[in-house]
């Protein structure tokens, strides 16, 4: 399809694409900009776009008010921990489904996905009671377990679609080469599926990072991640747009940066076998 694309056409398409891209990104950009304004400038009319007195006062204020590093660390531990634990459980499961399919495999997969349709609010009280009895309230481990469970179906599915693209012959070759089940999964399957596993990991870190129901309801102080941090800014007395923006920026920046750096990986694996 390499017919000459005229440069004017390319310029036109570029202009349209950039305009749309910036429009979609604008709310985030605006939040970041606002976080550097004073409260008065933040609600000034007409709004100032770039020409205002840049200040980091909001960040200072937010930091003095909340223990950002603690929340940040909790978010990191919870999202990465739950993803790793999920992978640990999901890799063998996906292996079985992809390479030793049985009649019920598709049904099991679909059933797993359907567990994600349970509305969390409906089961909060039972889970809360269980957590209380097991002493898991406000613990990182408790959140890791919950987030692992809620994301497990997605992890299994992503890995399943990814594994299915790996030719079974390679695993058979390993078996012929004397590899046991463990060697097969560890030395052959897992390294071959690294791109898929990486994107699964990324997507799940993002989903766990942004999960705001369980993380908010099952934690108090020690294990509270950034979602709880944001909850303490969501409606303070008076609408402090600038402080809110600073807190928002702090909450989303890590994942935004991670997402940007790894978008290639993410894109590659996000296809859920949708692309053949």
């Amino acid at each position: 399809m390499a017919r000459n694309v005229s440069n004017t056409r390319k310029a036109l398409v570029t202009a349209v694409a950039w305009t749309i891209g910036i429009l979609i990104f604008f709310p985030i950009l605006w939040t970041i900009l606002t976080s550097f304004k004073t409260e008065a400038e933040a609600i000034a009319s007409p709004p100032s776009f770039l020409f205002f007195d840049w200040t980091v006062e909001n960040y200072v204020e937010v930091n003095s008010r909340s223990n950002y590093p603690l929340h940040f660390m909790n978010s990191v531990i919870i999202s990465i921990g739950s993803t790793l634990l999920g992978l640990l459980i999901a890799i063998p499961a996906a292996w079985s489904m992809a390479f030793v399919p049985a009649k019920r495999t598709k049904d099991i997969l679909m059933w797993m996905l359907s567990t994600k349709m349970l509305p969390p609010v409906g089961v909060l009280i039972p889970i809360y009671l269980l957590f209380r009895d097991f002493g898991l309230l406000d613990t990182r481990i408790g959140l890791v377990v919950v987030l692992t469970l809620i994301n497990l179906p997605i992890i299994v599915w992503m890995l399943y679609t990814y594994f299915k693209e790996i030719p079974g012959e390679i695993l058979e070759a390993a078996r012929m080469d004397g590899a046991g089940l463990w060697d097969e999964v560890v030395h052959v399957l897992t390294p071959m599926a690294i791109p898929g596993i990486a994107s699964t990991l990324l997507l799940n870190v993002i989903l766990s990072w942004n999960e705001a129901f369980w993380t908010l309801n099952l934690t108090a102080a020690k294990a509270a991640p950034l979602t709880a941090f944001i909850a303490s800014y969501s409606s303070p007395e008076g609408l402090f747009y600038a402080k809110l923006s600073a807190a928002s920026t702090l909450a989303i920046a890590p994942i935004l940066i991670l997402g940007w750096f790894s978008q290639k990986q993410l894109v590659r694996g996000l296809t859920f076998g949708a692309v053949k």
Partner: protein
Amino acid sequence: MGNIVLKQITKSFGDVQVIPPLDLEINEGEFVVFVGPSGCGKSTLLRLIAGLEDVTSGEISIDGTNATEVPPAKRGLAMVFQSYALYPHMSVKKNITFPLKMAKMDPAEQERRVAAAAKVLNLTDYLHRRPGQLSGGQRQRVAIGRAIVREPAAFLFDEPLSNLDAALRVNMRLEISELHQTLKTTMIYVTHDQVEAMTMADKIVVLQAGFIEQVGSPLELYHNPRNKFVAGFIGSPKMNFIEGADAQKFDAHTIGIRPEHLTLSTTEGMWKGVVTVAEHLGSDTFLYVNVEGFDAMTVRVNGEFSVKHGDTVYLSPDPEKLHRFDQQGLRIA
């Protein structure tokens, strides 16, 4: 080392019996080729021997011991897959070392064997590349390398050359033959390709729908096919079959003549026909001739023979080379 015996083995997938009870003995050091139409069970048979599938019934013994329940890793066989099944994330060297590592062999010995294999296969310069950076023929060699380092009791090949282009196929065919001559290890080789089967095999096993139709050396099958199926399957272009009155003349239900055993004349001969297509290859000419009452017949003439579409020609069979079959399709000796 390398004697494989299949006794009354069968294989069913669900309700479908793919391999009916089958007996086969493969001797040490033999180069055995399985041929047969697509779906006849060649791969299945190979995978049963490898242990990648369980037999439904029957017994497989390798070197005299019953291996029916032994997992693939323990059977001491090596397999080269159609897709090569190289490990894409490992270098050539790691690929070749993998089976040795799995066997927990002494690292120095690993090194030695890999170096030796790489030398035999001309891979020494590529040891640090990944499979993705190799050409088809090189990949093929890595797959073989991975098989030979283990010094297996036997090699199993499942259509290993079918993904290569024609020129490379010829080369690799020669290389595998040479390898067999060097190693003298039992090899079981599945192919679709006439030429490969004819040129490489010590013994060809012709399968149809899971049945063994005939076992024998290539020229044995070419000259003395046991039945019509084998006769039609071995040889290219395909043997011409004639039924009815003309066959009766030879006291047979069906007669078969290979295209290369028909003499062609523009003036006289046993059968008169009209040329439908003439393919001039320079070295040979293939003619497709419509003889009344017969199916289209293929004739091969060496060198050139200037006829064209629509010409009338006469065909005569070489009576020495004629094959006769009875109603059941069995050869009449």
